[in-house]
């Protein structure tokens, strides 16, 4: 399963024997996988396969769902993020997330991006201005909004709102960015912009994207992880996996036989 190029690259996240349950129902079954630094990793699979649950376990946002239980480890910076003494605020600063539906906060464009900075105690206004500008630039939104930073964020278009959500996540300087179907609510042009942006961002961030759009995953990802009914069936470098999948299930999915 592992090939030589993969081994030479540095991993940032190691998921080991990871299980997840909603009440009695097991959603994730013994997941073992590595995520490589500064790469784009795409988790693919049919709906209900557990890919979003897995993604939401990586920043522990799924803890908000009351009957969600896990076992196993997700190791980040040498530590299991499910250890009792983990500071969730700090974990989520380092592992940012963008959701399927763009949800700007009920405030101005500027304040949206600055929200995370205030939480993490950056009080110097000049420094904040600088970071907001940088984050908006990285999210390829600066040129479109630089003259109207005080405008309510809800007045932006859907695609702009999603880039604003990306800027908001980038502002707190994460190392990993989790993207949960970030383009499924957007039109093709806005989708194209986000895809370009994601490729660009992987120079500085590790990106993990969940998508049910196989073409998108093939286009932008370096690594692909195929999940089916709660299990990780196969993973590896995208171009190899797309050309010669090792498992029959993967091949069937790639050929559109299961969806």
């Amino acid at each position, binding site marked *: 399963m592992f090939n030589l190029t993969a081994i030479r690259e540095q991993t940032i996240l190691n998921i080991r024997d990871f299980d997840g349950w909603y009440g009695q129902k097991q959603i994730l079954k013994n997941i073992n996988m590595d995520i490589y630094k500064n790469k784009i990793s795409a988790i693919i699979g049919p709906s209900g396969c557990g890919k979003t649950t897995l993604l939401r376990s990586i*920043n522990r946002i799924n803890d908000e769902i009351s009957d969600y239980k896990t076992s196993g480890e997700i190791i980040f910076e040498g530590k299991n993020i499910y250890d009792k003494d983990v500071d969730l*605020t700090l974990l989520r600063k380092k592992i940012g*997330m963008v959701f399927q*539906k763009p*949800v700007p*906060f009920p405030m101005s464009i500027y304040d949206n991006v600055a*929200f995370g900075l205030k939480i993490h105690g950056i009080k110097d206004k000049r420094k904040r201005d600088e970071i907001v500008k940088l984050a908006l630039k990285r999210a390829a939104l600066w040129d479109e909004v630089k003259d109207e930073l005080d405008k309510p964020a809800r007045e932006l278009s859907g695609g702009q709102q999603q880039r604003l959500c990306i800027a908001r996540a980038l502002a*707190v300087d994460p190392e990993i960015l989790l993207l949960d179907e970030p383009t499924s609510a957007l039109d093709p042009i806005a989708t194209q912009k986000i895809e370009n942006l994601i490729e660009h961002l992987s120079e500085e961030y590790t990106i993990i994207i969940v998508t049910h759009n196989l073409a998108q995953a093939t286009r932008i990802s370096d690594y692909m992880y195929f999940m089916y009914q709660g299990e990780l069936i196969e993973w590896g470098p995208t171009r190899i996996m797309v050309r010669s999948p090792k498992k029959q299930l993967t091949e069937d999915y790639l050929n559109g036989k299961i969806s």
Partner: protein
Amino acid sequence: MKKKINVDFIVSLIFRIISYMTFLVVVLIIFIVIADGVRYFKPSFFIEYPKKAMTQGGIGPAILGSLIMISLILLFSIPLGLLTGVFLSEYGSKSFIGKIIDISVTSLSGVPSIVYGLFGLALFSITLGFGTSILSGSLTLTIMTLPVIASSVREALAALPRELRESAYALGAKKTETIFKILIPAGKNRIITAILIGAGRVIGETAPVLLTGAVFYSTKLPKSLLDPVMTLPTHIYFITMSYGADAQWMAKATSSFLLILVLVIYLIAFQLRKEEKNV
């Protein structure tokens, strides 16, 4: 095929007739009450005291009394209702205590207003010794308004998209930061709408005020919260119950003014709700 269309037509006709009837009732109430009263409106009516056994003068002290009363009710019930609603929506809904509070809030809104009046009389006027006063009256009405505001706040927060909460948590925000900086501002219009509708309802409450805070005639303005006041709804009640035909114009004019006041409050509330839908 043809038969189906006929059934559809008849059913929609029934629905239409019934909803037009509701509309007609509303129009009739508004038209009759307001038209019957506005002809007595003149500047002095809103400022002066009632004179000569309610046959002349105006309703100045009743307007003032109602305004003081509603301000106090909002002052008490907004913070309490807001916090209760936040608790129910964000903390309590699954815990045992949360369920109990939830049931209490729901049953409180079903208690008849005269029962609130008796309760207020027993607790505030007698046991706590506030007597018949603005304080007793507004505390009693606060208890009535509280469940309305609390359950609307809860609904306003529950209607917000889950991603809004999660986006804040995903940035590392704590629960309190998320509630006060994101959720309440996001639900602001709905919350204000709910408060206004609550205010519109409580401003016309008669029975509880009658028992706890109102006086039928007062020659001087209240000096403290422990003084009783005249209010608009109790003024209407006293005139219709205890005065002769010569005084009835004042009841009509007062009803008309009260209804206009409530309508204005509701219009503001609906306007806010419309804005909410537009964004």
